[in-house]
């Protein structure tokens, strides 16, 4: 549900990082935030109440150029993966133009990954959408840690749709921008066909 700000001559796209608790969603956002040029980004904002928490910032990826004279601004959002914050997770999906599911590659987190991807599908359905309708990719994070699952196992568990997938070690930045660029391509392709 991209929105256009005609006065600022910007097309705004919302990208949501989703995944189980402690999988590295916030680490992805922080890495992108710190690596983005100051003049091209807004502040990182954390909004919290007793039951809701959202972290987000927006930036203009200069390398993307423009679409029919309008710059493209990405708004990157994430919410905590803990069960307690399900209301936030439902809300944050509203109007999302693209989704990145961040999976924790550690074998001990296999069940949490599966529960989270099911929760994602369920919460999307409440907005009348499905994972097949929306630009969606998967990042297998923490590939640098010991006791991780093989890619084939993660793929079989989490990627039945066969969407694009990326390996990452977000703490050191490995795979972070590759993941975002992968989703950006899908979002912009969809945008180009709808404008």
């Amino acid at each position, binding site marked *: *549900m*991209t*929105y*256009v*700000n*005609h*006065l*600022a001559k910007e097309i*705004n796209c*919302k990208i949501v990082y989703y995944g189980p608790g402690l999988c590295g969603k916030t680490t992805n956002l922080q890495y992108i935030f710190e690596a983005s040029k100051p003049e091209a980004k*807004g*502040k990182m*904002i954390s*909004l919290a109440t007793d039951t809701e928490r*959202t972290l*987000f910032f*927006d930036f203009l990826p200069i390398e993307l150029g423009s679409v029919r004279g309008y710059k493209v601004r990405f*708004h990157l*959002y994430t919410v905590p993966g803990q069960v307690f914050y399900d209301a936030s997770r439902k*809300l944050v999906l*509203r*109007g999302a133009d693209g989704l990145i599911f961040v999976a924790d590659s550690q074998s001990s987190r296999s069940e949490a990954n599966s529960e989270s991807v099911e929760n994602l599908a369920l919460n999307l359905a409440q907005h009348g959408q499905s994972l097949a309708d929306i630009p969606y990719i998967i990042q297998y994070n923490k590939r640098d840690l010991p006791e991780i699952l093989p890619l084939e196992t993660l793929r079989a568990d989490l990627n039945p749709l066969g969407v694009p997938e990326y390996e990452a070690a977000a703490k050191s930045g490995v795979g972070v921008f590759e993941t975002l660029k992968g989703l950006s391509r899908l979002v912009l392709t969809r945008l180009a066909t709808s404008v």
Partner: protein
Amino acid sequence: MTETQWRVATTPTEEARVGQAVLSLVQEDAERLAWLSAGAAASVAEVPDDAAAASRFQTMLELAYLVASADGFAQAERVSLAALLEQITGSAVDHATLELHFRDLDDAVALLGRRERFARAAADLDGPKQGEEAITLVSMVALADGHLSPPEYEALVELGRYTDVSAARVRALVEATVQRLEAKLR
């Protein structure tokens, strides 16, 4: 505090004049008028020569929209707010552009969330001084229909929270604006 409401226009004659009184109040501050006009002109320029001025103006517009729409935003209110802002900017931005912009901001709230947009716009302000300036200016604009409703006031308090302006100070700023408007109307 949630029941707080200010009404500056108590008669039909005053209600008809309150927009003009707000305009006059905004125009009394030359520095404010200068940055508003420069920001408005930069915002509609094909290639903005002053991106910072454009950004500041658009932030103010979004904050004015978020406060004015806190209790709903009927078409008549959109039209009168757009007309007022057109006058404030010396017609640098016409009311049709402003009405279109309000529709864009409707979409922004639907896509990104009202609280999130509020926090994002307020984050563009540089500390309490700009926060106080925004609260004063936005309260003037919100009072242009003759009153400030409890949700509009709460939105101003929220703006204060994001910019390190205390609730007591927000109240003092609103009361000062109300008094200055009343003085213009009487």
